[in-house]
């Protein structure tokens, strides 16, 4: 494997990691606030559909982005309603929303565009254009770092950079602001937050909606950045890989970045090579694809350090027994 190939694989990894990263950070907000969300997948999917649909009909990717985020927010709000207001089971709600997304996107796509479960291909202003980072050309001559910067890091669409910047932003919000303190507290002990005079309900809704927003970005990137239009079930399990990355990252933003890059890298490699030769053994493609899932199980089993979720995670806050 020569250097150029490595640069290309890294370039591809960043692209493929972006939806995972955005969704992973989305899950991070929600779960840090004590609301488990296995519905990342569904939110991404509706966002992907609506962003592509609106971008296709209006010709503006920005309107598409807005629509995608809005759709994802609606789903987030339903999750909030079920798990915060009505204290339902968060896992069941997530499962339901994933199905709802899978079904409605097809239904609406078919009704709207009559092109099977897909939107028309997006072109021109209906898609995000790549952005060249400053000095990309000038620096590309520098050995090693030059190509890495110019080819792997530069030349992605805006949402990739939003995703990358969201990592320090998330860290800052969670660990350096009042909102973050309360958010983390509500995921650990909502009773403490409540008796401190802060509304648990409002905090959890805020977290769930931020989760919706980020999932919206993830979905929009999928349909308008990575691909050029919506196709049925285009998230293809990315929501679950994001969840896996979240566990891998132990609910921390910087770790999340590395976890998502790793999973993006695995995907990039599996895209490029149908089997991977590891000196003695040859790993078939099916297993390269399943690797993130296998890794998650291994991590959950505690072989690679324990991952303790937020203490109040998954439990609705009930004041009165």
């Amino acid at each position, binding site marked *: 494997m020569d250097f*150029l*190939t490595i640069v*290309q694989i890294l*370039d*591809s990894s960043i*692209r*493929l990691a972006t939806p995972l990263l955005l969704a992973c950070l989305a899950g991070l907000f929600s779960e840090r606030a004590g609301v488990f969300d296995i519905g990342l997948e569904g939110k991404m999917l509706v966002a992907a559909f609506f962003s592509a649909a609106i971008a296709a009909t209006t010709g503006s990717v920005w309107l598409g982005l807005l629509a995608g985020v809005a759709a994802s927010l609606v789903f987030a709000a339903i999750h909030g309603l079920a798990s915060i207001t009505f204290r339902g089971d968060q896992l069941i709600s997530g499962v339901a929303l994933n199905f709802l997304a899978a079904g409605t996107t097809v239904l609406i796509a078919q009704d709207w565009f*009559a*092109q*099977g*479960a*897909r939107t028309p*291909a997006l072109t021109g202003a209906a898609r995000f254009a790549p952005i060249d980072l400053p000095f990309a050309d000038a620096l590309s001559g520098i050995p090693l770092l030059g190509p890495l910067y110019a080819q792997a890091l530069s030349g992605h669409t805006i949402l990739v950079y939003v995703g990358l910047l969201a990592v320090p932003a998330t860290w800052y919000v969670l660990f350096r602001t009042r909102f973050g303190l309360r958010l983390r507290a509500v995921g650990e002990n909502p009773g403490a937050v409540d008796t401190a005079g802060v509304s648990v309900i409002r905090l959890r809704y805020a977290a769930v909606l931020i989760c919706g927003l980020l999932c919206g970005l993830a979905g929009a990137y*999928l349909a308008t950045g*990575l*691909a*050029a*239009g919506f*196709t*049925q079930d*285009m998230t*293809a399990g990315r929501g679950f890989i994001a969840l896996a990355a979240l566990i891998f990252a132990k609910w921390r933003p910087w770790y999340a970045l590395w976890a998502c890059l790793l999973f993006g890298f695995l995907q*990039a490699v599996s*895209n*490029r090579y*149908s089997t991977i030769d590891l000196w003695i053994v040859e790993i078939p*493609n*099916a297993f390269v694809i399943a690797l993130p899932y296998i890794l998650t199980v291994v991590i959950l089993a505690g072989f690679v350090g324990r991952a303790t979720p937020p203490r109040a995670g998954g439990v609705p806050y009930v004041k009165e027994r």
Partner: protein
Amino acid sequence: EPGLIIDLGGKFDKSFNESAYNGAMRWSEETGESYMETELQSEAQREQTMRRMAERGANPIVVLGFANASTLEKVAPDYPDTDFAIVDMVVEQPNVQSIVFSEHEGSYLVGMMAAMASETGTVSFVGGMDVPLIRKFACGYAQGAKAVNPDITVIENMTGTTPAAWNDPVKGGELVRAQIGQGSDVVFAAAGGTGVGVLQTAADEGIEAIGVDSNQNYLHPGTMLTSMVKRVDNAVYDAFNAAEAGTFETGIQVKDLEDDGVGVALDEYNEELVTDDMRSAVEEAKQQIISGEIEVHDYTSDDSCPV
């Protein structure tokens, strides 16, 4: 009333299924009659769908794609009074018409064009599901390219090993990016819905691309070199017509260059990219293939490719 079962990937895959759908529509518009149509959602529903069509009295029933073979083999005998047609595969039953195409020949021609258009000396191929049928495309393509330029490099990638490989535009795009990284400047996508992503990325990255099955030239005028059309539409149209006229024949039907079953799409969208040289070379080769002067190796005949 004839029936058409659209395969996985959907009738708007801009490729294989869409071509069949267009054939049926053409028949419907010309005759003013309606036909039964349904779209498969999953592998395991093939049987129910075929049977439902048969129970409803559709005749003939056209099914698309090799994946239907084993189901049809089982279903056809239960409905001896119904005629079936299957595209891309041979099913030996008394009431089944098997329509197969000489994809290797068409691919040979687009391979030639690719080699002539390439400036880097590297061209590439993105296949859908890794099955002999798709290797047949790849092999024909490589033979054509080598015929023009024996030193040319032909990169070949398959999207996957399962039917999901027909519908993964994101992966298609990633594959072609990798190929571009390896120097390819013309890509041939024989990958159903996945091809949409391949052609899109080719257009984004500014390399030339070749579509498949349907004429896909209109998708990205300016970067679409041509399309290797496979006239599934004609096959469906003919089957419907024959049934109406009472001339539906069972058995194997081979559609090749000679009867325009496969071919190269030339239209206003790729006029600028196709040079006169290409035009004449392709025309000449076509005649030579028809006459047997050039023999294009069919991968499926011995599951191997000489180049």
